């Protein structure tokens, strides 16, 4: 029988170690969702554009990336990320692994969020666009001050649900050697040979965060987006719910 190692998980030094991992996980998640939100907005607007040379690349990007495993993107940026930025930052540039992970995660998440935002924009009554255009606003103005504020507000619960997916996905970034919550458990259990205890411990931490967030997003959802939009979003998220 193996020695009992549960006492490790009340040791303040070890708890601090896990705390640092948790902070890195939160940092990764926030950096990825912020970056992917910016790109998602661009891709969503691009896909809704009437110009085919803008619309087709956006459709290709969104559908292509959504059909790929996110771990593939993370592994790819880990290996090739530095080389991609050499033309910009010079020959001896080395992309930190943290940012390789953020790039991989946000490349995937931006495609998913773009679809969520697009569903939000399409759910608004056409009258909103027509009225604002009739009042003399340009396309850009009507998007910025009429359509997007309403669409994004509708999509807040869906985006929060996506955040729980990102938090779970950050564990994949641990596999390329970035220190985060999963990696901290990995370090602990490879040294003490207690994978059951260490993985159970972080599973509880992940559970508390993700369960709270998903309950919160469910609470917000009541009486918000129209029914068809909620169904559409639920379908989207099923396909893209990763690790």
């Amino acid at each position, binding site marked *: 029988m193996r020695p009992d190692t549960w006492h490790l998980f009340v040791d303040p030094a070890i708890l601090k170690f896990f705390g640092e991992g948790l902070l890195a996980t939160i940092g990764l998640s926030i950096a990825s969702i912020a970056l992917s939100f910016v790109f998602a907005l661009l891709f969503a607007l691009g896909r809704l554009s009437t110009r085919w040379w803008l619309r087709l690349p956006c459709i290709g990007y969104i559908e292509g990336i959504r059909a790929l495993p996110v771990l593939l993107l993370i592994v790819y940026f880990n290996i090739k990320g530095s080389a991609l930025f050499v033309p910009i930052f010079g020959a001896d540039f080395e992309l930190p692994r943290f940012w390789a992970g953020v790039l991989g995660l946000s490349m995937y998440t931006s495609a998913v969020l773009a679809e969520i935002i697009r569903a939000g924009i399409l759910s608004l009554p056409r009258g909103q666009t027509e009225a604002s255009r009739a009042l003399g606003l340009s396309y850009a103005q009507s998007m910025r001050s009429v359509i997007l504020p309403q669409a994004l507000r509708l999509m807040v619960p869906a985006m929060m649900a996506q955040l729980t997916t990102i938090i*779970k996905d950050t*564990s994949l970034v641990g596999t390329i050697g970035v220190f985060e919550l999963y990696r901290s458990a990995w370090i602990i259990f490879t040294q003490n040979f207690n994978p059951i205890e260490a*993985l159970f411990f972080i*599973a509880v931490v992940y559970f508390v965060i*993700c369960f709270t967030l998903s309950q919160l997003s469910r609470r917000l959802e009541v009486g918000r987006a129209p029914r068809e939009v909620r169904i559409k979003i639920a379908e989207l998220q099923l396909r893209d719910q990763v690790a």
Partner: protein
Amino acid sequence: MGIVFEFPDYYLFPNGLWVTFQLSVLALAGSLVVGTVVALFRVSPVTPLRWVGGGFVEAFRNTPLLVQLFFFFFGLPLLGIRLSAEPLESNFRAAVIGLALYHAAYVAEIVRGGLLAVDKGQIEAARSLGLSYVGMIRYIQLPQAFRAVVPPLGNIAIALVKNTSLAATIGVSELLQGGELIESRTFRSVEAFGAVAILYLFLTIPMGLGVNWLERRMLVVR
């Protein structure tokens, strides 16, 4: 790109693709069975069963798949459960179990939605005609529920195919690991991962089109 397909050990094609395919099919079958049982737990009239079902769904949905995979990979042997005498085979089985249970939680939620959507009158009529509870579930509620949940289950299947890539982290030689091996021997990352991406798209894009077709077809029927 040619090097990838001519690579001596055939890591990617056809071996990697075949392993990914096997993982997907076995895990999908497992998740459908487990998910349906959990869904029946969640709608059962027995309260403790509903708690068990709810606990299963929330526990598996709110923790990362990677953590679950490693839990089964390292944990089961430590608990005295040896999946296979052969190491590679036992990695594969651990991956199938982990993937099946994780996706079973999502399947359970969908099937539960389908079960609840069946008209109450159908259930009452079945019971009053003398069908037992099990018979009513078997012949009335499940068949109608399954019809409605086919398109969302297709979405789960797509997610599952993509998630089989995580099996690479516990040493299953599927597509992604094949790509990593080729990359580490040739340093031609664009070709190696490009080929992996194409092979994944080869699996997921037709599935996506199929799901869209099913969704449209179901709309017309209703």
